[in-house]
């Protein structure tokens, strides 16, 4: 039995009925009277000077209402991190990748807008292009941004402890290089938006975003509007996975077109444009050297990483830091050196995707740990247990594990998968592998430097009593946060879940940094809990005055007022309530407990509308070194995973037979949603490990920009997943809750790779595991060991 009334249960999601019936409104389901349609002219070449843009033919086309270029849009620079604002709405001097925005059109219908775009004539003067890190870093290579010579977008150099000295004490040192491939998040709803600049000069943007707050700020900055005139509303969103966590050019362009025409303007990316825009996981090349003592103690890691960034920064600065900092845990490791480089290339920009920055790094390192365990003749699971941190430990780069159920997770998957009986006893061609990982429960600092609260929330009680209206600017993108926060509000206020109604995703509701870095459950959760407690105290304060009982001798639970000592006579209060509700059929009966409904009506009569507010900002986190902020978080969720595979040595085909995942999410608010996040993480990891690669031709064009050729897992590709929830009590989380959305993807790829090695005895250091790559690796191994 749970000690809670609402949380820690399997409540169905509040938005599920609307979504299961087709009633839920996504942005492309919206329309407005007089609405125009927008379309963008994107560069067909990867690197060129713009000599001339002629929009005259487009402007003359009947039905065209506006044509805009950088002349109208201006050249205010923006991006994700203020440290690297390197984009403008439209290119004016040159284009840097196939897809760079040059002009846009608003017209009475989409066909006309597209035709007008095709009539815009641009004269280009081709520049040499760089498509790989080697090309981009070569001496004399063409430079994408004059401000960043050598195409070096960002570099990181960190050392904690003394790696060189530590290696001298090591008995085994392993060095390997690993490479993943550029990803696409492949959410099913492409980006879309609807901008409405009204007659009073207020701009409202409805958009498929994870971060209404950041979009609002960028719009105000780039469009030079007072931020109070800009409102961003997020309807239901068909998922984001990190790619919708920045402002996209279409969002700004639709606003500009609406401002220019005075009409609402709708725009959408086609699936091809989603690939052209990119902003998903980078291609990382990691080289790691790990030193371990012969008893299995991990001593040191020396690590270099190169990120192929594409044409702009996007989230890339955070990515290049995360790629190093997230190896600080979950194992005790006193010495770590990291050198990271993010390089500009003439390709769509890469950004953040589920497991931001850490997924490929972990795929490299957790394989290396297995190699070392094998050489030491240790069970890789035991070696991990031996080095594991525990709650209260701090990593060498100052990340504090305030709760850490990592050992419990390992034991849970050991048992859940029957590891002890399977490891070393599976037939040839079958393998079992494991890995661990962890992730932040929200970034410790906002993307822009600020003392802002990360989340605010407020709850208003309906004046007639009984229902709590929860308003938060958080972003429901499918993860279930509206349900989570309704549950937290109901629990903290002491009322049933169906007495809470939630509205979210609107910048008018307050500040919430949004759905990224797995932050909302902890951060928004805190704000919601505080607002609910505030409301409760206000109601109890009125009761206290009316009934002459100290507020602390009362509570609200399951929708009724609890009197901890003697029950007072509240009949006069009840009479007042009933008098005001003559003829209503749901009035309380004599002998009933005093209901929350009655209490909140009485509170309203005494004080007017009852509104409670809540806010959250993390405490000061992390060390003092450069980049210390990236990786900090009030709490860390963690996962252990075991994967079983079959490898056909004749064809190189890998089949995933079973996956067992245990995740420490602190206190599980909604157990079904926690499992849903674990399942989603695992399947995205399977896709990256097995199939996914955005392919780009020698002219810089994406050649598999559709879901037929960019293959994500189908229902037939996914095995049955066993998910085990491990709960801890996170001191910094609301009700002890923390992250689950990204920690669970961290071990997936290395667990698959370790299982493949177990099956065939060959290590593979490049993704994805296509039959061709696996077959070739097997043949090369055989040739070498003849």
């Amino acid at each position, binding site marked *: 039995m749970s000690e809670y009334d609402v949380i820690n249960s399997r409540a169905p999601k509040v938005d599920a*009925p609307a979504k299961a019936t*087709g009633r839920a409104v996504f942005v492309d389901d919206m329309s407005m009277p007089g609405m125009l349609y927008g379309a963008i002219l994107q560069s067909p070449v990867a690197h060129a000077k713009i000599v001339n843009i002629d929009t005259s033919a487009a402007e003359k086309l009947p039905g065209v209402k506006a044509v805009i270029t950088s002349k109208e849009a201006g050249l205010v620079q923006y991006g994700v991190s203020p440290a690297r604002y390197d984009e403008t709405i439209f290119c004016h001097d040159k284009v840097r990748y196939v897809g760079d925005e040059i002009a846009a059109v608003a017209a009475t219908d989409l066909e006309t807008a597209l035709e007008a775009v095709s009539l815009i004539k641009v004269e280009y003067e081709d520049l040499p292009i760089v498509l790989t890190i080697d090309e981009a870093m070569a001496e004399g290579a063409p430079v994408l941004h004059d401000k960043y010579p050598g195409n070096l977008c960002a570099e990181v150099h960190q050392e904690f402890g003394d790696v060189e000295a530590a290696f001298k004490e090591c008995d085994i040192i392993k060095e390997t290089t690993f490479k993943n491939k550029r990803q696409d*998040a492949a959410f099913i709803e*492409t980006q879309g938006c609807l901008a409405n600049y009204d007659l009073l000069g207020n701009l409202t943007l409805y958009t498929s975003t994870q971060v209404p707050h950041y979009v609002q700020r960028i719009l105000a900055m780039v469009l030079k509007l007072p931020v109070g005139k800009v409102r961003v509303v997020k309807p*239901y969103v068909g998922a984001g996975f990190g790619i919708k966590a920045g402002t996209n050019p279409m969002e700004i362009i639709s606003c500009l077109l609406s401002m220019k025409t005075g009409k609402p303007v709708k725009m959408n990316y086609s*699936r091809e444009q989603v690939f052209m825009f990119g902003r998903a996981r980078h291609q990382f090349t990691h080289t790691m050297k790990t030193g371990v003592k012969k008893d299995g103690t991990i001593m040191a890691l020396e690590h270099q990483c190169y990120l192929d960034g594409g044409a702009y920064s996007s989230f890339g600065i955070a990515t290049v830091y995360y790629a190093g900092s997230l190896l600080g845990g979950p194992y005790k490791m006193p010495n770590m050196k990291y050198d990271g480089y993010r390089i500009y290339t003439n390709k769509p920009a890469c950004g953040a995707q589920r497991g931001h920055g850490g997924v490929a790094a972990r795929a490299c390192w957790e394989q290396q740990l297995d190699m070392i365990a094998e050489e030491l003749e240790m069970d890789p699971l035991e070696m991990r247990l031996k080095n594991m941190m525990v709650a209260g430990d701090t990593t060498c780069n100052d990340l504090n594990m305030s709760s850490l159920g990592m050992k419990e997770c390992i034991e849970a998957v050991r048992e859940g998968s029957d590891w002890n009986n399977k490891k070393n006893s599976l037939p040839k061609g079958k393998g079992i592998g494991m890995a661990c990982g962890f992730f932040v429960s929200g970034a410790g600092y906002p993307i822009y430097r600020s003392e802002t609260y990360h989340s605010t929330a407020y709850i208003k009680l309906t004046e007639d009593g009984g229902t709590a209206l929860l308003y938060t600017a958080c972003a429901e993108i499918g993860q279930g946060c509206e349900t989570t926060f309704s549950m937290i509000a109901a629990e903290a206020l002491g009322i049933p879940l169906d007495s809470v109604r939630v509205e979210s995703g609107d910048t008018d509701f307050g500040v919430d940094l949004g759905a990224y870095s797995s932050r909302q459950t902890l951060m928004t959760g805190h704000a919601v809990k505080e607002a609910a407690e505030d409301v409760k105290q206000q109601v109890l304060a009125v009761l206290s005055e009316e009934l002459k009982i100290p507020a602390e001798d009362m509570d609200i639970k399951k929708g009724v007022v609890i009197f901890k000592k003697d029950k007072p006579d509240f009949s006069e209060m009840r009479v007042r309530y009933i008098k005001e509700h003559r003829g209503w059929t749901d009035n309380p009966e004599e002998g009933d407990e005093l209901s929350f409904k009655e209490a909140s009506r009485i509170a309203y009569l005494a004080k007017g509308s009852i509104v409670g507010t809540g806010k959250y900002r993390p405490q000061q986190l992390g060390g003092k070194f450069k980049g210390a902020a990236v990786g900090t978080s009030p709490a860390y969720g963690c996962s252990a995973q075991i994967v079983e595979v079959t490898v056909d040595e004749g064809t190189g085909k890998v089949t995933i037979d079973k996956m067992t995942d245990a995740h420490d999410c602190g206190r599980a608010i909604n157990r079904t949603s926690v499992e849903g996040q674990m399942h989603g993480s695992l399947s995205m990891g399977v896709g990256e490990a097995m199939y996914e690669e955005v392919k780009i031709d020698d002219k810089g064009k994406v050649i598999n920009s559709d879901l037929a050729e960019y293959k*994500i897992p189908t*229902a037939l590709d996914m095995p*049955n997943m066993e998910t085990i929830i491990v709960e801890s009590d996170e001191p910094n989380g609301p009700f002890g809750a923390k992250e689950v959305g990204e920690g669970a993807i961290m071990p997936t790829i290395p667990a698959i790779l370790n299982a493949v090695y177990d099956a065939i005895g060959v290590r593979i250091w490049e993704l994805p595991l296509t039959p061709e790559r696996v077959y070739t690796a097997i043949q090369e191994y055989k040739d070498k060991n003849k």
Partner: protein
Amino acid sequence: MKKLINLTINDKEYEVAVEPNQTLTDVIRYDIGLTGTKKGCETGDCGSCTVIMDGKPVNSCLVLAMQAAGRNITTIEGLETEDGLDPVQEAFVEKGAVQCGFCTSGMILSAKTLLDRNPNPNEAEIRSAISGNLCRCTGYQKIVEAVESVNK
């Protein structure tokens, strides 16, 4: 040149003027206003535009509206009855099979078609029936569990 056609959607007759190149998805969404049918790729890869046409699940983005004239079409909006949600919809809600919800309409309609001809499918049959509907959120686990639970 637009042409007037009759579409039967959820047992209701619609008379609509359509262009020869208009897809059934676009006509259902933008002309008739049943926006529960989603549009994720327009190339028949994702399955979010799935509707039931004459008892079979089809990608409505690969069907021209004119080809659908005279056919019997069910969209997600056609599943609810006066008694409430269809058991498949109910199962998706109860089992946590809905995350972002963008694949849900198509997924439910594919599952519904399967269950209509095979009331007690096994896991492999379910996975095969929904293999044309991509979902990036759930890893399909709870969707499969939801379909398995119907008629149980």
